[in-house]
């Protein structure tokens, strides 16, 4: 008897989860992800993903959007942390706050936590002696 009741409870729990999931998939059709459906289908087809269900493509699009949003949020936090660390006059700080720019440095720091290593060249020079002072250049 006890086993039956617990089994019954777990069944109800599963029904709730299934119901929530079905609702979610239905609500996905109302929500338009930023990445267009055709583009998602193109990339999925490129990797061999076959599914006639549009809701699943939407699910993948939403998952990717969430991932990029998370990365962008982390990069934003890095940017703001850097700005708050720099001590400047009030006027300059306000100007900087308005100019939140996604830089390579912030992005590479944010992506490192997600397992993506982005290394970026500091600068490109057109000759080995570029940027050196005149003494060493003569040599």
């Amino acid at each position: 008897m006890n086993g039956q009741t617990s089994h019954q409870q777990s069944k109800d729990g599963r029904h709730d989860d299934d119901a929530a999931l079905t609702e979610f998939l239905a609500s996905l059709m109302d929500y338009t992800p930023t990445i267009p459906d055709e583009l998602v289908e193109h990339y999925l087809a490129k990797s061999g993903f076959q599914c006639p269900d549009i809701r699943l493509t939407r699910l993948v699009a939403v998952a990717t959007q969430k991932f990029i949003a998370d990365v962008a949020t982390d990069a934003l936090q890095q940017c703001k942390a850097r700005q708050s660390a720099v001590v400047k006059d009030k006027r300059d700080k306000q100007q900087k706050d308005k100019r939140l720019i996604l830089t390579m440095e912030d992005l590479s720091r944010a992506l490192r936590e997600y397992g993506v290593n982005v290394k970026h060249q500091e600068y490109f020079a057109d000759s080995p002696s570029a940027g050196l002072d005149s003494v060493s250049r003569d040599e």
Partner: protein
Amino acid sequence: MRKSLRHNDKPIIEEAGPLPELEFSFTITRVAVAQICQSMGFKGAQISALEALTDVATRYLQAIAKLAVASANSGGRTQSNLPDIIVALEDLASLQGFPGNSSIRSRSLYTSAVIKDLMKFVEYTDEIPFARPLPPRTIFRQGAKGKYLKYRGDGDNSRGYRDGDSLRHVPRWLPAVPVVEGKEKGEEGKREVKWGCLDGRTREEKEDENWRFCDERKRVERVVSNKEIEISGKRGKVRFKMGVAIHNPTMVGNLRVQGLEKEFGATDYDEKEA
């Protein structure tokens, strides 16, 4: 030199002739990623940073697809379904970690924290529709300019390799594949051609060691769409009887072609015994 792309302006898509497909999809993805960054609060981005993030996005999409396909294939399926995708998402999220990842007992995929996070994300985030309407589906061929082909409608997986009415990988001079009766009959120009087919009479095969090419069971319709390739008219039905006849002494070691019958338009075929 640092360049920054302002999000307030419309994204500039350079049009330098026909774009290869990779650049085309990359450019569109870049626009979408830029929109996402803007909604997060960024006012601008370095071009190299934006392109790096776009590259990450495309690789993420492809990684989900690859993992989902692998999961489906290991289950003996060719089409992925929802649990496959959840497995793929869990794999990718296991780097950062999510609650429930360490549970030793087998847990239900449907209650995974990954899906719950997604549900919250959809609930609390506003929609950001894509900035521009996408151009009609273009198929990229080497050396060809971007042609705008007919849109074949949703849910048609064959969009990538169809070219109007025919398939791209099939040379045009090959005849069309015959359509079995019962499928939708489209345009004009169809003829009825009788095809001989093997009937499933295996028990008689074993008994007599006679192979019999049987009567037609189905009527096969041939779609003749290409006017210059026309296979001449209706062909007659050919019947063969071969083999070493044990029961029938008159046919020892004989190969007889029994009757070349030409029948036009007949629908029923009786089974004829030896």
